[in-house]
């Protein structure tokens, strides 16, 4: 009896430390197995080239954004301007692309803009002593206004690339390669450089990190800049999906990121348990549900409910905070 009790302690300890990750990986594996078994019964296959391509195109933008957002979430911050950033970057890429005949100038402009937005979002919190979400709300509204003015002036709700061939951005292979590169680079930055370590440290305990000599302002801004660059990469694929941008491009993306990260086991309050893999696992889980549920005959209107319930189950399973709310 005593021995059994002793054995269960390490298991509990392991679950306490790795429960969120195990649940998120388990969720993804469960979805893959479920859809692999059930879809053939209905004459479909989630492993068909067409469905894999659909899955990749569904996952790519969310994954690229979420990987960048890990740097912001690990600080314990939320950025709700991400969707509008994507919308603006996509609009600039199409607009400048049509003017110059090349996507490069538009992408460069977006990279510069992303740094400016990152500085505003990252620095204004500590400088003005306001909670970090406030600047992102302001940025979101400003970007929303700019997008509305741009499309009102253009007299249309969407603009399309006229002369540039954007078909390369539809290639699942390219999507996979770019995602792999982004994950590798960000994982390196997050796990093996001071930026990532300090980001987690700031998320875990801002005061202790400050007392240890970590510059809150500098590393916050750096995290936002890294995330911003990832958002530009995501915007390239968002725009390249249909070679277009509209006044609603990016709307609600920040919520997709939040859901993907939590599904991936990311602690919403940041800190030492933050990991880049949460973004990839969560984004794939989110998208495989999008693609797989209709294939097993679930009506589209019900997929929203099913995804919401799965989201709730994951939150309940991984929540370990003393107050019993969101995972810490």
């Amino acid at each position, binding site marked *: 009896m005593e021995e059994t009790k002793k054995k269960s302690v390490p298991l509990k300890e392991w679950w306490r430390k790795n429960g969120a990750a195990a649940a998120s990986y388990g969720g993804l594996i469960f979805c893959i197995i479920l859809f692999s078994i059930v879809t053939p019964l209905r004459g479909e296959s989630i492993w068909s080239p067409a469905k894999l391509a659909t899955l990749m195109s569904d996952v790519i933008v969310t994954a690229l954004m979420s990987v960048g957002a890990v740097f912001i979430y690990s600080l314990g911050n939320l950025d709700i301007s991400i969707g509008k950033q994507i919308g603006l970057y996509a609009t600039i890429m199409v607009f400048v692309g049509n003017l110059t005949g090349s996507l490069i100038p538009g992408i460069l402009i977006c990279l510069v803009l992303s740094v400016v937005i990152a500085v505003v979002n990252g620095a204004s919190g500590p400088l003005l002593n306001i909670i970090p979400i406030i600047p992102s709300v302001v940025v979101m509204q400003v970007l929303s206004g700019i997008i509305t003015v741009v499309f009102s002036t253009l007299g249309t709700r*969407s603009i399309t690339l006229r002369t540039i061939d954007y078909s390369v951005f539809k290639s699942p292979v390219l999507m996979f390669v770019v995602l792999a590169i982004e994950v590798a680079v960000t994982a390196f930055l997050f796990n093996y450089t001071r930026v990532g370590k300090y980001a987690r440290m700031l998320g875990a305990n801002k005061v202790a990190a400050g007392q240890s000599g970590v510059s809150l302002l500098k590393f916050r801004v750096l995290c936002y800049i890294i995330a911003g660059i990832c958002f530009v990469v995501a915007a390239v694929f968002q725009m390249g999906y249909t070679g277009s941008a509209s006044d609603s491009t990016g709307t609600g993306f920040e919520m997709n990121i939040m859901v993907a990260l939590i599904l991936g086991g990311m602690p919403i309050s940041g800190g030492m348990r933050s990991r880049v893999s949460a973004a990839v696992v969560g984004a794939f889980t989110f998208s495989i549900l999008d693609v797989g*549920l*209709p294939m097993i005959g679930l009506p*589209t209107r*019900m997929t929203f409910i*099913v995804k919401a*319930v799965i989201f*709730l189950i994951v939150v*309940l*399973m991984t929540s370990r905070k003393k107050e019993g709310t969101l995972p810490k």
Partner: protein
Amino acid sequence: MKKFRNVTKKATAAVFAGVLALSVLTGCSTADGGSSGGGSGEDTNTVGGKILLMSNVSSGPMYDYNIAFMDKWTEELGYTYEVVYGDSANDPAGNLNAVKNAMTSDVVGLIVMQDGGLVDIMTEYPELYVVGLGNDMLSVYSDDGANAAVADNDHFFGTVAGGYANGEDTGKMLAQTIIDAGYEKVAVCMSPAFAYPQYAVADQTIREEIAAYNETAETPIEVVDDEATVLMFKPLDATFFNEPAHQDLDAIIGLCAGQQFIYPPLSSAIASGTANPDTKLITFGMEGSSDLVADVGTGIVQQLYVPNYEEIFFCMAMLDNAIQGKQYSDYTQSEVLDGVYVHISSDEIMSNIENNSPLLNGDMSKSIITDEVAQKYLTRYNPDATYAEFREFMLSDAFSEKAYE
């Protein structure tokens, strides 16, 4: 206490998991549309498959009617169907994603209620037959439209607009309504021109027509403001009625879904005394709630122009002919057809619509699309049916308010 919380948490997760499993099983067994395929048509040598309806609404009378229509006619003709929801703002990527996620190997046709990303959808699925509904598809039928390439695609069968496709025709119709009603002071509100360019044309036409009328009229009509008040996808601001020029209006012309965007603030302003109690609303679209219905005719909503939802028959006919490999022999090129309005201008007509039509209740036994109509215009039943006759039927009074008298 801690243990209790953990147990509660686990129990809640278990309940949610149970509900999820149940809903998935229920969903799988009933699937949207519910039709099992195979059909009951007279001609047993038919091709089946699934038709996707990409809807731009998820509730309301039009949605209910579309579901009722698809229920009846997909079963009748041997198809299944599924509703997918396009991007709420017609974003091309959102629409493409919606179709891609719902795509299964048995999908043969697509009815689209919005045009964003149409060229990408048809490039991705070149075998798919596509037709538009309740949309003028300006991006397809304008020279520099983003989807102009679709117009000549032999798998695209055109669209039936939600009313007049040309803003000039809409403007003339509304100007005449104002003149006939004897109004002397009117305002125009509209959805933004960048989203609905034809509304800007309609606004301009209204002003030109009334200016022309004023040249010989004994009592001229005043159209307040130089331009229409633009509603940015949200209801008219209540402060509109605080402006002196707007307080004694005879009518507001709503170039938008006016029951949704203008009626609430107008009725509120009338109730609070900030607007002329006799101000009437002339607008488009129809909401199903009983209080709104009760106010149509001689109430606040004086004249309502409702694109007839029953024109979804155009989509079903064009798709069915194509899927069966029996398209009309005289059909050569896709086009945008004007939608016929159900013009509700009196309590009696409103009552007819409520009682004799399926537009508010989805009761297909009251539909003008009867078996006889199908027998006449679907080539699977009538190989001699022609597009010219079909087109004439779609543009006829068979779809106006007169059909429900």
